């Protein structure tokens, strides 16, 4: 259920606002667990028998659009998505000035942590960010009202708490914690000194790397200044030294061979294909020999059944994620090789959620071969597994 933000940047919702958020979390859990299962059962009973052999996810969407259950599922899911943001926005607005003041205090408090924030007011915001409101989040991630504005970051973190109905852990960092643990167990010899998180938003998946590798210099990069202000203050609040940099991941202002681990989390699918390729080329450039590029992402269509592909691509059509389906049509191993990595050093894995399955399951995954083999992979629902892929340089 909703795990309300509890660190020093926590908002002060009224009891009614908390109740409204709890309702949305419960509604989303119902849609993504119960209704998703009912919809699949209806597909198998009523739609699958009349599908042509080899039908793909697009063909299934075309057929399902006429199904009354799909229509209700989708109408409820879109409204629930809108309610996520609507349920936290009033609190964010009311607390904006207090939040900005608290962030300034945290930034100045070097006894907690020694992180930095470097903004670039001249940075052009790419069209894939400036031209739409991804995830139907009003104002998107980059809406900046001026100095000290970190509302988009607050809206995102608090909204994500509602959105994920508890599946992303106490600090919304289950993805980062699960993957960092898996990497440490699978490659205990790998000790990165410099770690870069591309498209870090509020840094919630950046900080697990600092916990996993305390001696590393950890940097989060994003184009959205309000999210970075929030990420910096959030890291300070949590007592973790991390550095946040406003830049475009397709042209990172860091030297060649300056990083050991280049990571991203749910970032590539927000980009057009040419930008995905540019990001991977940047990863290749930035990595030292022996370094690792690692992406947490949605599983590609080639690895899924046609129905699971249809199910995941719902967001591309109805949740303002226009590049999502095109991303999932790509073959990760091909893209990694195109960027300069040796295809033989490509790998992927499905990593159990640490919060859901516990540490022993992550240990077992670290010993296993990189198969996907579950329709829980990449799907935000009870029992989620996180899909990662990457390559060594």
């Amino acid at each position, binding site marked *: *259920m909703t795990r309300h933000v509890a660190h020093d940047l926590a908002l002060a919702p009224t*009891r009614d606002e908390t109740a409204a958020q709890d309702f949305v979390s419960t509604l989303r859990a119902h849609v993504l667990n*119960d209704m998703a299962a009912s919809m699949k059962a209806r597909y198998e009973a009523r739609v699958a028998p009349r599908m042509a052999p080899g039908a793909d996810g697009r063909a299934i969407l075309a057929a399902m659009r006429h199904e009354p259950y799909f229509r209700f599922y989708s109408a*409820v899911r*879109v409204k629930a998505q809108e309610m996520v943001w609507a*349920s936290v926005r009033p609190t964010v607005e009311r607390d904006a*000035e207090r939040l900005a003041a608290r962030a300034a205090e945290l930034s100045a408090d070097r006894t907690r942590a020694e992180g930095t924030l470097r903004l670039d007011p001249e940075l052009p915001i790419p069209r894939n960010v400036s031209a739409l409101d991804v995830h139907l989040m009003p104002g998107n991630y980059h809406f900046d*009202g001026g100095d000290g504005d970190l509302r988009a970051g607050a809206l995102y973190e608090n909204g994500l708490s509602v959105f994920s109905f508890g599946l992303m852990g106490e600090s919304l960092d289950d993805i980062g914690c699960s993957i960092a643990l898996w990497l440490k167990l699978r490659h205990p010899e790998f000790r990165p000194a410099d770690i870069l998180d591309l498209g870090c938003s509020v840094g919630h998946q950046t900080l697990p790397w600092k916990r996993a590798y305390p001696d590393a210099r950890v940097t989060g990069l994003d184009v959205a200044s309000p999210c970075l202000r929030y990420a910096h203050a959030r890291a300070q609040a949590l007592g973790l030294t991390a550095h946040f940099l406003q830049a475009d991941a397709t042209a990172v202002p860091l030297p060649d061979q300056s990083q050991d681990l280049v990571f991203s989390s749910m970032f590539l699918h927000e980009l057009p294909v040419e930008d995905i390729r540019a990001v991977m080329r940047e990863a290749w450039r930035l990595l030292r020999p022996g370094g690792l590029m690692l992406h947490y992402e949605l599983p590609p269509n080639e690895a899924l059944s046609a129905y699971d592909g249809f199910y995941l691509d719902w967001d591309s059509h109805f949740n303002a994620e226009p590049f999502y389906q095109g991303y999932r049509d790509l073959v990760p191993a091909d893209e990694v090789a195109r960027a300069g990595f040796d295809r033989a050093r490509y790998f992927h894995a499905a990593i159990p959620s640490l919060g859901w399955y516990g540490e022993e399951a992550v240990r077992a995954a670290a010993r296993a071969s990189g198969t996907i083999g579950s329709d829980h992979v990449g799907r935000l629902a009870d029992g989620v597994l996180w899909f990662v892929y990457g390559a060594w340089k």
Partner: protein
Amino acid sequence: MSRLPPLPERARGARPTFFDDPAIDTLVAMLLELAQEHYVARARLAALEHWAAHEVTGARLPYSEAYRLPPEEEARLADMRAAFVRRLMAPIEQV
């Protein structure tokens, strides 16, 4: 009053609709707003009942403390909320 311009209230772009008559999409949205408001009132009532129970038994608590439900009451409310959402959505299962 904040010095900052207000955050936008709505996402840009056309709102997706799914039914042949988009009025049904509108009604679904209205129904969910109403359900949310009903739950908010129900949660407020639970808190007031908790506070009132302390009042009548003489175990006076500051209102700000009593209005925060103890964990077992929050868990009960969460179960009630999940059951409410299941009932609300049950008619769709007949489709």
